[in-house]
């Protein structure tokens, strides 16, 4: 049985990672669930699956070949925490859909990212000006111009819930 369960774990993890790499953020969130299921099963079966009786003791003592109670307790809490994490991820997904109108994994960063408050507007390119004082400053500016939104104005418009035509 352990062999079958190990293979199941591997399959669940693979499917979970495949979903995490999906193009739509919804499947990414569901991938978390599947991955969590796989890991829970892994922890559970690490306690060995050769139990014949559930872990309930009586006055006479523990039953012979009782199932290992410790991984069961750990997995129980893991399931509940995984559920809380899933709902939180779902909430973030819903919110980013409401704010930015976009649930594509590749585009959500560009759409949702706010420019750093202490930097100049990202439309300017990073040019090291002459003089020693500017060197650390210019270098401190953002390294990847491609990451920042091209038009912060449009990002702001969607953020403040402008009319239903607002697109990023």
């Amino acid at each position, binding site marked *: *049985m*352990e062999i*079958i*369960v190990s293979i199941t774990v*591997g*399959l*669940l*993890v*693979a*499917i979970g*990672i*495949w*979903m*995490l*790499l*999906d193009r739509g953020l919804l*499947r990414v969130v569901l*991938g978390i669930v*599947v991955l969590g*299921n796989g890991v829970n099963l*892994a922890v*559970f079966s*690490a306690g*060995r*699956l050769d139990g*014949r009786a559930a*872990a309930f*003791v*009586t006055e006479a003592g523990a039953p012979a070949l*009782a*199932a*290992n*109670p*410790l991984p*069961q*307790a750990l*997995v*129980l809490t893991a*399931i*509940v925490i*995984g559920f*809380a*994490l899933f*709902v*939180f991820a779902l*909430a*973030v*997904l819903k919110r980013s*859909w*409401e704010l930015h109108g976009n649930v*594509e994994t*590749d585009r959500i*960063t560009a759409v949702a*990212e706010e420019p750093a408050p202490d930097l100049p507007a990202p439309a300017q390119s990073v040019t090291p000006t002459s003089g020693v004082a*500017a*060197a650390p400053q210019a*270098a401190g500016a953002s*390294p990847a111009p491609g990451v920042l939104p091209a038009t912060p104005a449009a990002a702001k418009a969607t953020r403040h819930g*402008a009319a*239903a035509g607002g697109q990023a």
Partner: protein
Amino acid sequence: MLASISLIAFAMLAAVPLAARLGQRAGWLLALAPLAAFIHFLSQMPTVAGGDVITSTLAWVPALGVELAFRLDGLSLLFALLITGIGTLIVLYAGAYLSDHHHLGRFHAYLLGFMAAMLGLVLADDLIAMFVFWELTSVSSFLLIAFQHDKAESRRAALQALLITGGGGLALLAGLILLGNVGGSWQFSGLSGEAIAGHALYPAILTLVLIGAFTKSAQVPFHLWLPNAMAAPTPVSAYLHSATMVKAGVYLLARLNPALGGSTSWSTILITIGAATALVGAVLAIRQTDLKRVLAYTTVTVLGQLTMLLGTNTHYGLQAFTIYLVAHAFYKAALFMAVGAVDHATGTRQIALLGGLMRHMPLTGVAVALAAFSNAGLPPFFGFIAKEFKYAGLIELGLAGWITTAVMILTNALLLTAAGVVFLRTFLGKEGRYPHAPHEVSLPMWTGPMLLAVGGFVFGAFNNLAEVWLIDAAVQAVSRTAVPVNLYLWGGFTPALLASLLTVTLGVFFYLQRTRLRRRLSLWRVLWRVSGDRVWDRLLKRVFAFATRVADRFQHGSLRQHISWLVLAIAVCALIGMAASTADDLVWPEQTSPLNIAALLGCVLAVAGAAAAATMPGRVALVATLGASGLGMAMIFLAARAPDVAITQLMVETLTVIFLALVLRKLPPTRLVGSRNPAARRFHAIVAIVLGSVVSAMMLMTVSQPLPGDIAQWYLDNSLPAGKGANVVNVILVDFRALDTLGEILVVGLAGLAAAGLLAGSARAGGRPGSAGFDPADGARHPARAGSTPDCPEAFDGPASPTSQGSADFASVLLRQAILPLSGLLALVSLVLLWRGHNLPGGGFIGGLVAASATVLLALAFGVARARAVLRVSPVVMLAAGLALAAGAGVMGLVQGEAFLTGNWIFPGGLPLGTPLLFDVGVFLTVLGAVLHMLLRLIGQED
């Protein structure tokens, strides 16, 4: 000792509020803390001078043998007195100097923080503790240099100082760790010199530690940061960059002299680098036109000389080292403070503009005079004794000694010139051209320089005082063997005296010829083109450009690439770990439990459901297949004899489906599966398969070993007698490992609060931008079949509002009437599950989830308002009450004097009641509250 550090740290915390209240006068109050520490150390002077050592320890990381050990011997007492004494004067001075600065409180806080860190540095006996304080001084120095952060040069100087001293700190850490391992002890006092000297790693340790010390003490080639640090306000320059922080490197070398010193490499390196530093500093000092920079370069010179003296390791050399340390601290701090006073009063520091200040600022002038005489090394000042002993120490060395003596004479002569410039040119002579009309400064600003300058005179004239109380014990702490300490002003016509006379003559000559000297030096323009500063700037620019290129490669903002690389790295590490653990190939489990049909079906269902969820495009399909996958998991758990886990999985799966369905109504239809680019799809598939195979292999390897230990048996045996429960899993959760469960419900509560805030959202204002095919009136699209009942006439008026009427899909009267008793039954069942959980399958988690389902049914059928009315308390209150109850159940154990969360039981009428049951109720309430909070917000906002 820890008390004095804590006192100063406390003053640091109080600085900002005090300064906000009292303004400039806060300085007087704050100076009391270092003053108290100073008096404390003074009181320890008799003990330490007698040869004893005071220690105190605080355990920190017992497993690694690291502890917060403090040791007060001669050297640390010397430094501690310098730090706290000069610190008191500086705090007072700073209050007056920066009196109109709006961030004065912050300045005091940084200063006191630095003082605490420096004090910890010199008092620490433990290697790692000393390093922590070392880095803290670097950080506070950065904050202080960048205090006027609106000026670009301050920022640049601060960054330069931090990078150089921080980089040196890294090397120092490596060196200290090696030293601790090789030397046999993690304390300075326990290091064994012979073991270290003979070890093969000695050169490495020496290099690393020396790099650390040299960066901190501004030796060549790391000296560039010190003159640039003059961009800081003058109190900072007077305290950190002359008297205390820069001496930290030299202090470390002195502290390690018994352990690392004595070898020829140590002496050679120290003497060479020290001599080079002294020369560079002295020559550059003459070229400066700003008084502060003159003093900065002379500090570099003196640090070089101190290093040289330490390297000589002779009797006179070590005495000279200690004496010069004290003398320099006194006169340099006094000079810096006076220069700051001059700047404050006249508005300029340029030598060309100054002159004839003595009649305007007599008190400061006298202080500068005394300090300058000590700087120049004229009798009977302390600086003179230092100079004599310096020469005596070097001459002892023989031929190498004569060469270095020549260097020493030259640099001392130049120091005398610099002292002359600072005093004669500034205070005597004809009147200069001042931006402001000069006036004498306030009491706090001239007290400091005066006290220190007079101290230099007193120590020199009454040198017996210094010898007995300070110098003797300090020298013994530094040297490898016992050294007879004897200070004197007049020792007869020794070569040292001749050298002193030569120095004075040369110095006076240089002073009189200084313009011609400066012109000659500037002719060597070739050298000045290779300015360390410009090299630094170019280096920094290249480093940042390289960092940008690397960051561009890895921080591209694409979530999928991040995950892919992360997963591949994990797989590689796991493979390496597996390969390293067993010599042969994958170990196949020999003994496996028999095939269980139910578990097999569960596995198939779980995998099939997950695979379908991964590939099918519709929303309903997603929800259904995910639910099926969860059911498969529950079947596996049931088949493996884990009823509690199975029920939890079932309930969680139910609620997952509900949440998913409610949220999916708001999202666009999902048609996208996988990536558009086929190559990317293949890559993602490969990544997934790789990790899956690695995890499978790891699992197989794990289960092929026998399960180590017998903790499962322990839990089974002790559950009923100690935990008073037959359900071992539940007893583990609420009794044996209750602390983990407490943390876990805290996480659930936090996630619930956070998610609820997001789920409520701003649905009213522009909630759904973009995406076609989405109708906000979705819920009302089926009024004709479901909503048309005579009992609910409101359904005809348009889309039914779920907040008040329940979702329109549930508008069937049959359904509504049936749901009421069903909810009630479910609520009852949840309470039964909670009650019986300790002995039969059930418990707080399961009960909470079932109760949540009951309430959700009510909310969907009758509306959120009704459901909230039935609940009577808000879910957040339930959540909080649950957490409080769980924590309170634990506190009851504390009250009895036992550990937190110890179970206490009473047996009224044979019924076992105890704190773990209370804990379970807390868990129930928390889970119920969190889930309901999220769900009711989510349902309630769709209208």
